[in-house]
């Protein structure tokens, strides 16, 4: 199906708003993406027509709400090509998913002296839960570094993986560097040494076609709010063998089989990991969001965003004042339309404040990746991250405004 970018933009009500009297240019999609009308409508529909607690009552509203929630599970299963629908666990977001795995995997399989590997390019959410687990279990956290261009130093991977390594946590695409990591190779190398792998797909699920069976990853986690769905939604895909052999995370609600003071049995997957009342109205929007992504993938628009990416990459690369982090080596196809950079002699906050007044929403700061900031010797960066609803005109306007802002500040 042939669609123009304006057809897509018209699906997103927020894109027509103005900020400070100027057209909004939303370039902070890696933090949260905007929502199409279909997602907003689905959330409203559940709230207005089918608001009832799921998985419990037998009445009509409860049945409708449960159906919508479970339809999202099926949609996510198809989206990831998971083998079983019960391998899809709903959480509140990527952070919650990583915490769940770090805690439960740690309880079941990590003992004193064992090792866990992460990379230098991880978001805090894929570092701190593992640190906490290592502290609790007396395990050791090891780090795979990145090189000056932001690529993982895979040559060092084999020496990091020992007979004591239990699990490796790696991001599919860093939220700072925007490079697609060779996770298939990492997974294969980990598996050859009996090491399980969790992939942080917070950015990856948005920009790559993910097939968990082809990847053979043990866990794949992502957030709904970066993927056009409502906020407060997240996904944990886990291989059934792991999810069945790990203990539950939180107790209570519908995660039980039978409850006696003498002991409790747990519900089968996926309910075992979905304690308490779920954020069902938001989770239901995952299906609408995935329907939207399927529509996008069937259009020509992904080619247009690639051209915009190449244009911005070219402009940033040719400007001597700009230092880009996450530089593609071969073709630009290993880079998503996400650019973090610093400008010599200019603070990222000043640039962000001025760009904001020009109507452009960007991210500045440490981007929840302090180790990576330390690696590159900076206190923060400026980041722009684009979505398929962004246009070449917006990119050109950004480049013009960035130059103007730099001139004001230097």
């Amino acid at each position, binding site marked *: 199906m042939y669609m123009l970018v304006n057809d897509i933009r018209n699906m997103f009500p927020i894109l027509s708003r103005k900020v400070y009297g100027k057209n909004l240019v939303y370039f902070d999609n890696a933090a949260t993406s905007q929502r199409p009308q279909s997602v907003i409508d689905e959330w409203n529909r559940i709230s207005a027509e089918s608001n009832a607690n799921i998985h419990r009552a037998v009445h009509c509203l409860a049945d409708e709400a449960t159906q919508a929630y479970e339809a999202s599970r099926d949609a996510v299963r198809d989206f990831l090509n998971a083998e079983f629908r019960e391998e899809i666990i709903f959480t509140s977001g990527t952070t919650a998913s990583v915490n769940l795995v770090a805690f439960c995997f740690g309880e079941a399989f990590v003992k004193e002296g064992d090792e866990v590997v992460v990379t230098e390019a991880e978001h805090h959410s894929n570092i701190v839960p593992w640190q906490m687990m290592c502290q609790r279990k007396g395990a050791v956290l090891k780090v795979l570094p990145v090189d000056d261009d932001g690529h993982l130093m895979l040559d060092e991977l084999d020496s990091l993986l020992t007979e004591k390594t239990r699990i490796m946590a790696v991001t599919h695409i860093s939220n700072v560097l925007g490079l697609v990591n060779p996770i298939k190779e990492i997974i294969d190398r980990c598996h050859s040494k009996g090491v399980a792998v969790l992939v942080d797909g917070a950015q990856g699920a948005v920009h790559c076609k993910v097939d968990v069976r082809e990847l053979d990853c043990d866990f794949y986690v992502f957030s709904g709010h970066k993927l056009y769905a409502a906020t407060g939604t997240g996904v944990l895909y886990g291989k059934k063998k792991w999810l069945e052999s790990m203990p539950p995370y939180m107790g209570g609600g519908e995660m039980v089989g039978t409850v006696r003071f003498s002991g409790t049995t747990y519900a089968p997957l996926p309910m075992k990991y979905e304690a308490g009342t779920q954020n069902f109205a938001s989770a239901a929007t995952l299906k609408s969001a995935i329907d939207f992504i399927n529509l996008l993938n069937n259009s020509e628009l992904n080619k247009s965003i690639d051209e915009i990416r190449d244009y911005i990459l070219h402009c940033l690369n040719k400007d001597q004042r700009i230092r880009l982090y996450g530089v593609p080596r071969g073709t630009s196809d290993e880079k998503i339309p996400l650019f973090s950079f610093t400008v010599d002699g200019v603070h990222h*906050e*000043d640039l962000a404040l001025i760009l904001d*007044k020009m109507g452009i929403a960007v991210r500045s700061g440490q981007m929840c990746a302090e180790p990576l900031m330390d690696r590159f010797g900076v206190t*923060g960066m400026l980041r722009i991250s684009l979505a398929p609803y962004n246009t070449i005109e917006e990119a050109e306007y950004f480049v013009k405004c960035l130059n103007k802002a730099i001139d004001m*500040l230097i």
Partner: protein
Amino acid sequence: MSLQEAENAIIEEFSMYEEWLDKYEYLIELGKSLKDFPESSKTDEKLIKGCQSRVWLDYKIEGGKIIFNADSDAIITKGIISLLIGLYSGRTPQEILSSDFSVVEKIGLKENLSPTRANGLVSMIAKIREIAYGIEGLD
């Protein structure tokens, strides 16, 4: 000039700038002209850390008045700091505590103070009050 008169003078000065661009350009100039903190003084105790800009604040007491000295690595924040130093440095703790610190809001820079900006400016104002309050308590 009393503190309130000084605050009103700044509010009046900023009312001349209708465009945000002019305001920012003025703040950038102010920021550039504020004396840098000596590198040796940029210690962790003086650092007010935020996700965005870093702000350093130092003070001493001379004749019952508090002399503030501050710096930031971001120039617009440094410009606002320069304004604040101009207003509150060399005042008695009682004078400082009589201010409601609404001047930044009144000159149309409220968004620079929003907690979501996560910068050091909000913390700096809180710190100025805290210092004044602590010294007043000693009297």
